[in-house]
């Protein structure tokens, strides 16, 4: 992948998950150089960790509409 990838810690769950899928597709379908393949693998492992960590840490964020504003909601 020629363009620099954003750090894994800045990805949302969906972004990390989508990239993980595309890395698997690339590893499955395309002939990679060993260096590329190892880089993809390392990135994939990081993405898997990121997704799991996001699930572990996630706290439901609840807001509510008040008039024309969206404000935090505390039960």
């Amino acid at each position, binding site marked *: 992948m020629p363009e620099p990838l954003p750090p894994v810690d800045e990805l*949302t*769950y*969906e972004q990390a998950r989508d990239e*993980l*899928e595309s*890395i*698997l597709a690339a*590893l*499955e379908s395309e002939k*990679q150089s*060993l260096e590329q*393949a*190892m880089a*993809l*693998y390392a990135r*994939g*492992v990081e993405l*898997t960790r990121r*997704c*799991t960590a*996001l*699930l572990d840490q*996630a*706290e*439901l*964020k*609840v*807001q*509510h*509409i008040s008039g*024309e*504003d*969206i404000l935090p*909601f505390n039960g």
Partner: protein
Amino acid sequence: MRVCYPFMAQYALPFSFPAPVTWSVSELTRYLRQLFENDETLQDVWVQGEISNFSRPSSGHLYFTIKDSGASLRCVMWRNNALRLQFMPRDGSAVEAHGVISIYETGGQYQLYADTLRPAGEGALYQEFMRLKAKLEAEGLFDPERKRQIPAQPRRIGIITSPTGAALRDMLNTLQRRYPLVEVVLAPTAVQGVEAPAGILSAFERLNRLAAPDVILLARGGGSIEDLWAFNDEGVARAIAASQAPVISGVGHETDFTIADFVADLRAPTPTAAAELAVPDQADLRLDLDELGSHLGRLALANIADQRWSLQSLNNRLLLYSPRPRLLGEKQRLDELSLRLASATRHFLALERAQLHSLGRHLSSLSPQAVLERGFAILHDPDGRPIRSVRQVIPGDKLLAQLSDGSLSATVNEILPPSEKG
């Protein structure tokens, strides 16, 4: 005496009844019962009133009276029907009862044998419900092809419900448990009462415009049909159809169906079920992630194995062109040359040594001492200069003659011409 009842003539009874002269109470009562039971109107009747004298003995049958300001009607509901009731009536409840009118012969009382009981007003509401349902259905608002896809992993969920209801708690707990990555925007509104439809409409409008959620949950916990009536409002139905985000309805209990349920893109039986349908379960996501992770590992190992194999075959090809055999040949030649060099050097040195030895001998043969030993003498003048010619001396010169074992002085007497050789 045969008593003639004038009203009897009005009924063309499908049975023959030999009217006795004097009826027993039982006969008369049975006669009346059969009159009632052959009247179609009385065998399929709805009656409305207020419940009193309600009793429910251990048999499970229900006994009560329905009354209004002018009259009262004894009612009984058998256990099998009573078990199917959606609500438990009490004294004072305004109800509509359906059943057949007949006579309890032992008690001498006509009464309603009720099979269905519902809160009063439900009948009119039901009519309104059916009318609106038919109208909207004709317009195509319930068509399956209108239903939008619910996104599998929404980022933002809009919730339209009461901010204080148990339904909201249930939904938030469900979302937190299943998919806490999602963001929730609540559009709080009353969900019952006259102001509820307008509140729900406004909630749809503002939620779509301000929060643009991926999906909207429209929910309310269980309640009576009146409590749920806002969800049978035509305006609410049209707001659901017009919502930009797809809508999941979760109103009341499993058995409650509202117009909102028909218009919604997906109907859930309860608010909790609506939340479950809106998001994936993180337990499944974690299993997927584990699977993806090990798949990734297998792919990486397979890639390394591929690389190793192709490296091996490249190496095999490379070995065919290895310079090693040539290098060994070169090394051998070098060794040979080196040996030859050493041996040549040794030979040369021996030769030199022999030559040097012979030169030494030659040199010693040329030494003056050796000449002197062979009987020759060397002449010097008194100053030590060697005399090599007769022209260097004149008679009378003193000379020194060196012999092998010493020297002697002599005087030149005469110079003689050179003698013939031999």
